[in-house]
């Protein structure tokens, strides 16, 4: 009985913290319509800052807590709403999700910058772990009592806020009908801003409370994933009801502790199961949620993509492979691996082009599907031993199929629901893979077969060998990866140009209209999700082969999220966007951060500067992601638009091509460095539309633009402006003259015009301005 009571108390405490986190999430989601994926990251930042104040700087506990809850939390929420969330109106759900994901990544990067992850930090309980009371043999620490009291206080406080305060009533009214709130003289944005301030504060509080409960060590990633736990709890209330969210949080907390207490001792995987519990609960709840009503798209969003023809895509595919071969000649052997990794990620990113760019759905854990594919390929497709071991085609195909089937299983419960739920289901799947599948390092009996899913936590993935192609040779691997990406890229474009692709576009643009034409939406979504996860699986296997040996660290959620974000930044509707996102996520980070590290070793004096640069590069990337709010179609949309105008002046393009070749030769001859070459080429092609307009205005500018450029003597500008009655009346009114409704006697036109062709029209007075 004492055991039961002890674990009940522990479960309630855990539930209490989940409840605090979840109520903040529900609050901001309902008042602003934005599901805040960075909620856990805010909790994490809160926990670290509190640690800094209280443990490092020695600020008294009570003062630290007050600072965190009264200043940091509200301020963080207010700033987020003011500068980021407010700009997300009229954007697709994908954009909203990606922006909060970028904030999440930014917070993680910031925290790792400020607090070295290698260093252990123990967060202490309030009043220490030794202050406790004992009730009937059950030990309850003061900290735990505080958690319970805080949750109870928040439950009561939110109830009072929503029913007894005008601001709370306004928050509920915003949920009901923001326009009607405006008609009542309120500003829904201000209400939402306050809700964000409150929601962030709740996140910060949850972050401070949970760390000692969950073991004491401050760990950025675990805290960031608190958003999944909170989300699972919030789903009990369908993301709407706060009381039911509290119930869900308690169910989650209690199940978690009972599992540890009562599971048979031979279930060694119970700890992992416990970590994965919120994700499992999430899937179960998704299964029982009722289907969304079919609604029209009605609002037009700001995202724009153009579809290239298959022929154009094929030309670019050849260009891309040739460029890869050419670029290989410039770099040393040690960098080839990075480039292969980048291309592997680009293949994974292609899965997002299909899924998100074409079908409007989101997968937040593409790399985790790559992990599944890798594991299956490893178990089914390695032949030979030692250095002679090779992956065969069977393994590759089996891995890809496994990813597709897993994709179907993950997506099935969420497909009936809105895109947000699918995004969350995939994020939860990513968490599940990390905390359960990749921790299956021991040999166990699986239906009579003894084997380990992820043996020793480290898979040696041998290179692929198909016929004459042997990926053990780096160059073969590189060119093959480029070719696979190029072929898949053309395939993806061909898919978009087929009837299937048009059906995807139709479903994305208006599910209601597509359904009323007879389209089976769930089936179509399922099929595209499978296609997408198959591609992600292929990319994942390539990635693992490029790394040779993979651990669970290589499949962390941050990597998936970075990839998703960078692909959206590049332009998720484009194959080139996938290339950009993949190269940057897979190769770019390693390259840039690595270069800065090397530089700091070479120039120890500036080590600190280079350290800052490399950290700020990571944070800047997140800022670019947040910038998606301003430019939701991605960077390539602008670039393509500019490049397309150059079609009318091909000589500009040929010149640029010649310059590129020249630069290449200079780099090949080692007159200029590879970096210099890369930067110059990027700058040249980026600036080309502007250069072209400056050099060939007659070809590239429209008639209007040319006319605007035509020299007009400055003194003539604005001399002859029509002066309608309306303006006269307004002038009269503002001067208080009673001339308004009198018959306007036509005033003698006062025309001082250089342009003699303009004739004063009837009833229009002309004056000098």
């Amino acid at each position, binding site marked *: 009985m004492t055991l039961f009571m002890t674990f009940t108390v522990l479960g309630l405490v855990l539930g209490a913290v989940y409840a605090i986190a979840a109520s903040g999430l529900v609050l901001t989601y309902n008042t602003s319509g934005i599901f805040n994926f960075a909620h856990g990251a805010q909790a994490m930042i809160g926990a670290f800052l509190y640690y800094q104040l209280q443990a490092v700087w020695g600020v008294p506990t009570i003062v630290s807590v007050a600072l965190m809850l009264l200043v940091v939390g509200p301020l963080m929420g207010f700033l987020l709403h003011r500068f980021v969330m407010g700009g997300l109106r009229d954007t697709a759900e994908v954009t909203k999700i990606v922006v909060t994901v970028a904030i999440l990544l930014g917070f993680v990067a910031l925290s790792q910058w400020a607090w070295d992850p290698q260093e252990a930090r123990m967060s202490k309980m309030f009043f220490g772990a030794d202050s406790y009371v004992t009730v009937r043999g059950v030990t309850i620490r003061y900290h735990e009592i505080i958690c319970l009291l805080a949750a109870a206080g928040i439950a009561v406080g939110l109830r009072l806020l929503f029913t007894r305060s005008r601001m709370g009533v306004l928050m509920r009214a915003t949920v009901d009908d923001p326009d*009607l709130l*405006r*008609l009542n003289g309120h500003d829904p944005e201000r209400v939402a801003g306050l809700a964000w301030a409150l929601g962030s504060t709740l996140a910060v509080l949850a972050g401070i409370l949970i760390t000692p409960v969950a073991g004491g060590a401050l760990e950025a990633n675990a805290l960031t994933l608190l958003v999944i736990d909170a989300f699972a709890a919030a789903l009990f209330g369908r993301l709407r009801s706060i009381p039911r969210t509290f119930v869900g949080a308690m169910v989650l907390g209690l199940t978690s502790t009972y599992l540890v207490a009562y599971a048979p001792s031979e279930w060694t995987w119970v700890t992992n199961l416990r970590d994965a519990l919120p994700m499992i609960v999430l899937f179960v709840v998704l299964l029982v949620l009722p289907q969304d009503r079919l609604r029209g798209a009605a609002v037009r969003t700001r995202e724009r993509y153009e579809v290239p023809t298959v022929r154009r895509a094929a030309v670019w595919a050849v260009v891309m492979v040739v460029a890869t071969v050419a670029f290989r000649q410039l770099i040393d052997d040690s960098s080839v691996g990075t480039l292969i990794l980048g291309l592997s990620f680009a293949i994974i990113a292609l899965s997002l082009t299909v899924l998100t760019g074409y079908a409007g759905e989101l997968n937040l854990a593409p790399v985790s599907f790559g992990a599944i594919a890798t594991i299956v390929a490893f178990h089914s497709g390695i032949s030979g031993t030692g250095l002679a071991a090779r992956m065969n085609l069977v393994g590759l195909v089996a891995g890809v199929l496994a990813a597709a089937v897993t994709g179907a299983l993950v997506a099935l419960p969420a497909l009936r629901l809105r895109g947000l739920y699918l995004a969350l289901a995939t994020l939860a799947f990513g968490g599940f893979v990390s905390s359960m599948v990749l921790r299956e390092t021991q040999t166990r009996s699986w239906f009579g077969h003894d084997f380990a899913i992820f043996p020793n936590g480290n898979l040696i993935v041998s290179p692929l060998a198909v016929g004459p192609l042997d990926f053990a040779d780096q160059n073969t691997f590189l060119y093959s990866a480029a070719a696979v990406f190029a072929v898949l890229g053309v395939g993806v474009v061909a898919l978009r140009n087929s009837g299937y692709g048009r059906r995807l576009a139709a479903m994305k643009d208006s599910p209601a209209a597509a359904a009323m034409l007879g389209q089976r939406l769930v089936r179509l979504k399922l099929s595209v999700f499978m296609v997408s996860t198959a591609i992600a699986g292929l990319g994942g296997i390539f990635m693992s082969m490029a790394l040779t040996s993979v651990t669970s660290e290589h499949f962390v959620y941050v990597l998936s999220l970075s990839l998703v974000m960078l692909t959206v930044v590049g332009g998720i509707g484009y194959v080139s966007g996938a290339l950009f996102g993949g190269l940057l996520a897979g190769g770019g980070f390693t390259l840039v951060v690595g270069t800065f590290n090397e530089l700091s070793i070479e120039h120890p004096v500036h080590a600190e500067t280079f350290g800052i640069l490399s950290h700020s590069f990571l944070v800047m990337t997140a800022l670019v992601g947040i910038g998606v709010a301003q430019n939701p179609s991605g960077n390539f949309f602008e670039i393509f638009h500019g490049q397309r105008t150059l079609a009318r002046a091909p000589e500009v393009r040929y010149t640029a091509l010649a310059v590129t070749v020249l630069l290449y030769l200079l780099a090949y001859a080692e007159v200029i460095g590879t970096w210099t070459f890369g930067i110059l080429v990027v700058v040249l092609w980026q600036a080309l539309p502007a250069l072209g307009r400056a050099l060939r205005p007659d070809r590239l500018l429209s008639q209007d633009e040319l006319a605007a450029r035509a020299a007009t003597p400055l003194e003539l500008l604005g001399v002859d402006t029509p002066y309608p009655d309306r303006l006269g009346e*307004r002038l009269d009114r503002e001067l208080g003259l009673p001339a308004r*409704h009198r018959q306007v006697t036509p005033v003698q036109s006062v025309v001082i015009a250089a342009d003699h062709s303009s004739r004063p029209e009837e009833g229009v007075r002309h004056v000098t301005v």
Partner: protein
Amino acid sequence: MTSTELTAPVPAIDEDPVLELVGVRAAYGAIEVLKGVDLQVPAGSVVALLGPNGGGKTTTMKVVSGLMPTTAGEVWFAGRNVTGITATEASRLGVCSIPEGRGVFANLTVRENLWVATGTGARLADLEEAAYARFPRLADRRGQLAGSMSGGEQQMLALSRALGTDPAVLLLDELSMGLAPMIVSEMYDIVGGLAAEGISILVAEQFARVVLPIADTAALMLGGRVVKVGRPADVEDELSTTYLGG
């Protein structure tokens, strides 16, 4: 019947209108709904905006209340050009708008609905007093969710906002929608009372006959334009043909 016959039917010449629309155009995406609306609401008068569905009445109301941006033209309010102001600003300037259908927050109680209405500066106590005095049924239901009340009671609650906040202009959109004729005429009695207190009222209504008795001026909207403005009696004659196509 209120004494409409005695007041001047045509917009007053010497006085500035409280509300004026000049060449207003507005569109939902590519669908242009208002194609140059000219309309005046003289101070203290009731203007009925009539016409079949799809003529642009509701959009006109949305433009005036600030919920819908214009693509061209101007909106003047009490001598100020207010084109492009937000609904929040408009309501604080004294434009009280009761939108089509549901003018209440369904998931808020009666009392909470009135509480939200204090956004324009009124006090909750005054609002409650005014509302419950006029509609005793609301007093009995002050703790009930607005969405669970009958359509008539919801409309009473919506109208209460106009009673307690002392607006300069009241915009009423399809007050009669979905209501039984008895309740509709009860509503318009109250609107007539507000008009007598000097509030300028613009009312969009399909049920021409319930609103014409209290209107000083009637304006007929067709295809996104005001096609006729005149005495209620004159406009009434045209209605049957306009609506049913002869």
